[in-house]
C-alpha cells in the first residue's frame, strides 16, 4: 500500500524555492484568466508560460503525464461530442458523423485549454509540499479572521490530517490483515455485501482513530496549545525578490494574452 501522499516531487529548482503563497496566487489567477478569453493566440501565450515554468521546475515529464492521464477521456469525449453534434457545414460525413471545421476547431481549443489548466495545477502541486501549501493558505486566509474565520486553527487541522494519513493507511492495512487471518473476505459479492464485510474493519479503525484524537488533544494541551491565540512559527514565510519576479511574470503573461 502506498504511504506517500500528495503529488510533491522533491527537488531544488528555482520554482521549488518560490514562496508557496506566490505560487498559489499565481496559479489561481492564471487558472481563472485562462477562461476569460477564447482565442488560440491567448491560449498559446498561456501554454508557452506553462512550458517555461515546466522547464524551470526540473520535474520529469512523466510526473506531469500522470496528472494528464485522468483528463484524456475528457479530451476524447469532447472530440466525439463535437464530431457527432456540431452544427455548421460538414467537410466530411460518414453516416451520422459530420465533421465540421468549427466543431474540430472548438474541440481542439477546449482540449488544449484543459491541458494547459492541468499543467498549471500540476506545477503548483509538484513543486510545493502539501504542508507548505497549507501554510500559504493559512497566511492568505488571515484577513478572514476579521470575519471570525479561525484560519490558523483550520490550517492546523489540515496539517494534522496530512500527518495522519500515512499512519491511518498503515492502520487500515493492519486491521484488514488481522480480520483476514480470522477468515474475513473483502473482495467477494456485490457492493452491499462488500460494504457489510468492511464493518469489522471500520469499527476498530474509527474507535482507534477517535481515541487517538483524544490522546492528541491531551498532548496538545500538555504543550499549552490554546485555540484562538496567535502562534509563532519555527519557519516563518519570508517573501523574497524572486517571488515578486514570479508574480510580475504572471501579470505580464495575462496582459500579453489579453492584448493578442
Amino acid at each position: 500500500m502506498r504511504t506517500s501522499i500528495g503529488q510533491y516531487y522533491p527537488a531544488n529548482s528555482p520554482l521549488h524555492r518560490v514562496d508557496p503563497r506566490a505560487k498559489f496566487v499565481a496559479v489561481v489567477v492564471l487558472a481563472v484568466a485562462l477562461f476569460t478569453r477564447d482565442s488560440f493566440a491567448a491560449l498559446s501565450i498561456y501554454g508557452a508560460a506553462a512550458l517555461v515554468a515546466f522547464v524551470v521546475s526540473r520535474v520529469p515529464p512523466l510526473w506531469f503525464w500522470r496528472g494528464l492521464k485522468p483528463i484524456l477521456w475528457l479530451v476524447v469525449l469532447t472530440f466525439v461530442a463535437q464530431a457527432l453534434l456540431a452544427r455548421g457545414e460538414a467537410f466530411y460525413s460518414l453516416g451520422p458523423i459530420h465533421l465540421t471545421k468549427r466543431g474540430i476547431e472548438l474541440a481542439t481549443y477546449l482540449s488544449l485549454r484543459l491541458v494547459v489548466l492541468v499543467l498549471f495545477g500540476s506545477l503548483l502541486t509538484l513543486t510545493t509540499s502539501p504542508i507548505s501549501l497549507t501554510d500559504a493558505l493559512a497566511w492568505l486566509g488571515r484577513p478572514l479572521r476579521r470575519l471570525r474565520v479561525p484560519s490558523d486553527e483550520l490550517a492546523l487541522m489540515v496539517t494534522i490530517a496530512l500527518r495522519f494519513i500515512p499512519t491511518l493507511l498503515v492502520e487500515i492495512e493492519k486491521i484488514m490483515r488481522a480480520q483476514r487471518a480470522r477468515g474475513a473476505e473483502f473482495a467477494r459479492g456485490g457492493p452491499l455485501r462488500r460494504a457489510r464485510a468492511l464493518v469489522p474493519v471500520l469499527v476498530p479503525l474509527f474507535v482507534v482513530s477517535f481515541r487517538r484524537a483524544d490522546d492528541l488533544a491531551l498532548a496538545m494541551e500538555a504543550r499549552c496549545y490554546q485555540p484562538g491565540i496567535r502562534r509563532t512559527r519555527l519557519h516563518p514565510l519570508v517573501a523574497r525578490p524572486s517571488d515578486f519576479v514570479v508574480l510580475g511574470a504572471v501579470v505580464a503573461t495575462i496582459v500579453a494574452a489579453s492584448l493578442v
Partner: protein
Amino acid sequence: MSLLGLSNRLRDHADPRHWGVSLIAELAVAIGLAAALGQLRVFTMPQGGSVSLEMLPILIVAIRRGVVPGVVAGGLYGLLQLVLPGAFIFHWAQAALDYPLAYAALGAAGAVGVRGWKTLVGAVAVGSAARLVFHFLSGLLFFTTYAPSWEWPWLYALTYNLLFLVPEAAITGVVLWPILKALDVALPGAVRATR
C-alpha cells in the same frame, strides 16, 4: 424532530473560535480518515467511477458534533483532495464546486438529530442531497462547456451524479450505524450520537 431541536443542533459548536482542543483534534483525524478511506476502493462502478467510504468520517463528525463542524471538516477535506493524486479538474469553478463546496455540504447531515435507523437514513439523505446540488451544478458546467451542442445538459448532469452518489450513500449508510454505536460505547465521555 421539533423546530427547536433543529435550531439547537445548528447552534452546537456554531462558532469555531470557541472550539476546544478535543474538537479540533477530532476534526483533524476525521479529515485524515476521509483521505485514507478515499484511497480505498470498495467497489468499481460499471461506468468507470468507483465507490469509496470517504463520506463516512465527515458524516460521523456532522452527526456527533453538529452542522458547523461537519461543514468545516468536509470543506477542508475537499480542499485537501485538490492536492492529493486523482483530483479531476476541468474548470476553476468546477474545482470549487466538486471539492470544497460539495464536501462541505455533507455537513448538512448534522441538522438531523439521529435517534435510530430512520433518522440515520434521513441524515445520510440530507447530507448526500446537499452534496448532489454542487455536483449537479458542476455537471451542468461540464456539459455546457465540453458538449455545448447537446440538449438537456441538466438531465445528463443529474443522471451521472445520481448514478454514483446513490450507491455511495447506500453503502455509507449501511456501515454508519454500527460505527456510531461503537463510538458511543468506546468514548463514553464524549457526545452521544445514538440513544
